[in-house]
């Protein structure tokens, strides 16, 4: 039997014979490793997942005409959107405001893409339904002012500013009343094609973009859109971007500190457990020494045992941690978590290091003792 084989045999035999004690140690290491991998995964994923929640605040970038005479239409908007990485891009909504007459009163009406308006302004409360073609979403204040209710119909007429042509008229149906608590309540929203059918084609006034990205990425995207010089200039909605980065930084710091505190305490727990397990075996160490084992061979054997435990525990814990992180992510954010492959080796190395250190200290103190004293039980 070779030396290595004997070494392996001693380690595995000791693990198997002292099964219950080893399971206790293994459990401690696995839980520690699970906490490490789970919390670190969550820590890395929090900005992304929370960022998605923050998109509830609506658009964080707006596009306006740069005022150099170039057309600012939907094509120009889509061209500008192509500067943004598709992963972080959520939606872009064009708005074109025109004053139309309803019951002979001037009302500001916005032509837009209703479907993407729902994405860039998730906070819109609608009583009724989102409008289809030929239907209109009427702001709450405006609805009260004009006496409109869901289902009622009205005639919209548009006259050119110069008043040269006859006004164009069109019948619309109110599909829903819009409530936001903001200035949107003063307007009527219809599909862009409906507005073009009475007002002809024209430039957009503004386009709202919702992008899930950090402040630096947003600034870079805005710069690249503006410098592309296609008649579009991009501006960040400061109120949203600045506040978002403040709150997100705080949240990430919170998870970071919590992770750090939990980790330190867990490591100490793992270390004390390992220390207790090794201290118990002082008698065994004494016996071996009296049989002529060198200090080195005893340290190597105990360390081998500890490292094996650390490896198995670390692996099991890392996987357990990912399961936990996934559980948290699905329950809290209802989306899957991003797997950090690097975390698997890191978790294993940390748990091996902690168990190794935890074993080393008691073994060291044990071999310093005279075997005769230990065996005598003093």
């Amino acid at each position: 039997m070779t030396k290595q084989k004997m070494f392996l045999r001693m380690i595995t035999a000791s693990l198997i014979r002292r099964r219950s004690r080893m399971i206790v140690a293994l459990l401690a290491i696995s839980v520690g490793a699970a906490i490490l991998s789970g919390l670190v995964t969550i820590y890395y994923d929090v900005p992304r997942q929370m960022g998605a929640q923050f998109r509830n605040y609506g658009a964080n970038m707006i596009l306006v005409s740069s005022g150099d005479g170039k057309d600012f239409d939907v094509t120009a908007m889509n061209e500008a959107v192509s500067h943004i990485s598709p992963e972080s891009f959520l939606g872009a909504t064009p708005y074109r405001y025109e004053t139309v007459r309803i019951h002979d009163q001037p009302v500001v009406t916005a032509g837009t893409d209703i479907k993407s308006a729902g994405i860039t302004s998730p906070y819109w409360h609608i009583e009724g339904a989102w409008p289809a073609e030929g239907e209109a979403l009427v702001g709450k204040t405006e609805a009260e002012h004009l006496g409109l209710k869901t289902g009622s119909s009205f005639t919209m007429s548009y006259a050119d500013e110069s008043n040269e042509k006859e006004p164009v008229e069109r019948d619309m149906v109110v599909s829903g009343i819009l409530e936001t608590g903001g200035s949107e309540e003063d307007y009527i929203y219809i599909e862009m094609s409906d507005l073009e059918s009475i007002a002809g084609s024209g430039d957009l006034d503004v386009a709202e973009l919702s992008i899930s990205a950090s402040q630096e990425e947003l600034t870079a995207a805005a710069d690249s859109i503006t410098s592309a010089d296609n008649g579009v200039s991009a501006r960040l909605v400061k109120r949203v971007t600045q506040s978002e980065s403040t709150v997100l930084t705080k949240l990430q710091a919170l998870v970071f500190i919590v992770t750090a505190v939990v980790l330190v305490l867990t490591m100490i727990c793992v270390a004390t457990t390992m220390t207790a397990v090794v201290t118990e075996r002082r008698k065994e160490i004494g016996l071996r020494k009296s049989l002529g084992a060198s200090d080195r061979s005893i340290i190597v054997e105990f360390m081998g045992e500890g490292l094996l435990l650390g490896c198995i525990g670390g692996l099991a814990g890392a996987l357990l941690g990912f399961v936990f992180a996934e559980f948290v992510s699905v329950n809290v954010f209802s989306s899957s978590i991003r797997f950090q492959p690097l975390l698997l080796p890191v978790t294993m190395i940390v748990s091996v290091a902690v168990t190794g250190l935890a074993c080393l200290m008691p073994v060291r103190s044990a071999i310093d003792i005279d075997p005769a004293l230990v065996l005598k039980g003093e």
Partner: protein
Amino acid sequence: MIKGAFTRQWKKMIMIALTVALGTSLATAMLNVMMDVSDKVNQELKTYGANITVVPKSASVMDSLYEIENGADDGAYLKESELGNIKTIFWAFNIVDFAPFIDTKATVSADSGEKEITLVGTWFDHHLELPTGETLNTGVRSLRTWWDISEGDWLSEQTYTGTEKPCMVGEGIAKTLSVKSGDIITVSTTHGSERLYVAGIFSSGDTADDEIYASLDTVQALSDKDGLLSSIEVSALTTPDNELAIKAAKDPGSLTIAQYETWYCTAYVSSICYQIQEVITDSVASPVRQVADSEGAILEKTHLLMVLITILSLVGSALGITNLVTASVMERSSEIGLLKAIGAKNGAVSALVLTEVMITGIVGAVIGYFAGFGFAQIIGQTVFGSSIEMKLFVIPIVAVLVIAVVLAGSLPAIRMLLRLRPAEVLHGR
């Protein structure tokens, strides 16, 4: 005997106490932070500005719709004298900031030209004395946290000493008229004109960039609307809406008396709005959906996240304690063997071991509780810059947890000890 165990075996006992303390401190810290995190994050979310706007009941939309010069004179207004009432409602404590607004069209003239602009009157950091005797400072300074002051500084009514009335100018106007901080500009309306000192230039990224903000009384005088306001913005700490709140928001009259009381006494945005309407004559307070809804969603997610992390750390600390208690009880097999050999009954042995472990556990738990509270404070100070409130009901939770965990840790070990045969143990096998 127990005293003896403690004096003679103090090293082992300290080990148990230390582990229990560590586990307890972890549990205490996490529970305290979890309970308080909603409040803290709610405070942070206030950087998004007001979540309630108050306007007169028959708010005239003439101004923005028809773009009539000088605003709509026939419109309705709120009364400035009633502003302090906002801090007297049931949820007054939850009102973080508020600021009144009045605006008028005006012509601004500087050295380099003239421009038509909107002049907004408001409070910057107004010192307010309430009918209740309390005082507070409130105004747009804390409601417009996203404003970048590119030149000069925030205007402060309390510290400003110049002779001209102060104002802050939006970046858009400052650029077109090349106005700098420290300049004197003249604004005139149909009711008169006033020389204003430019205290600062701000950039807001929205329409306010083309507006001038001056103190409330200046604009009231310029628009001949003494003591009148066109709107109030209120920033309040709120609880995320649930079904009851949605039902109540539509019509508070549809609730039963019990439901009404629950709703009125919960800080839903709709109930705070309702209470503001009660104290401000002829007003409509409505939630700013953009802010109120998002706050609710983010608060809920953060809370849930912290609950799950807390559960994980509780499980972790419980397992740690159990492990160590098991390990250290089992170490004492020879002592137990001796006890049994001289005739101790199983019950007496179990009672002895349990009492020892429990006393150690309780000592550890008390130390751990305070250490954990310290950890919670560290988290609070580093992340939010404010201390975490001490929640008393964390104590019973932690106590039950520690007792359960220590018992669970000792039971399997005791069962093993009882199965020992004294002769074998004493023989050293």
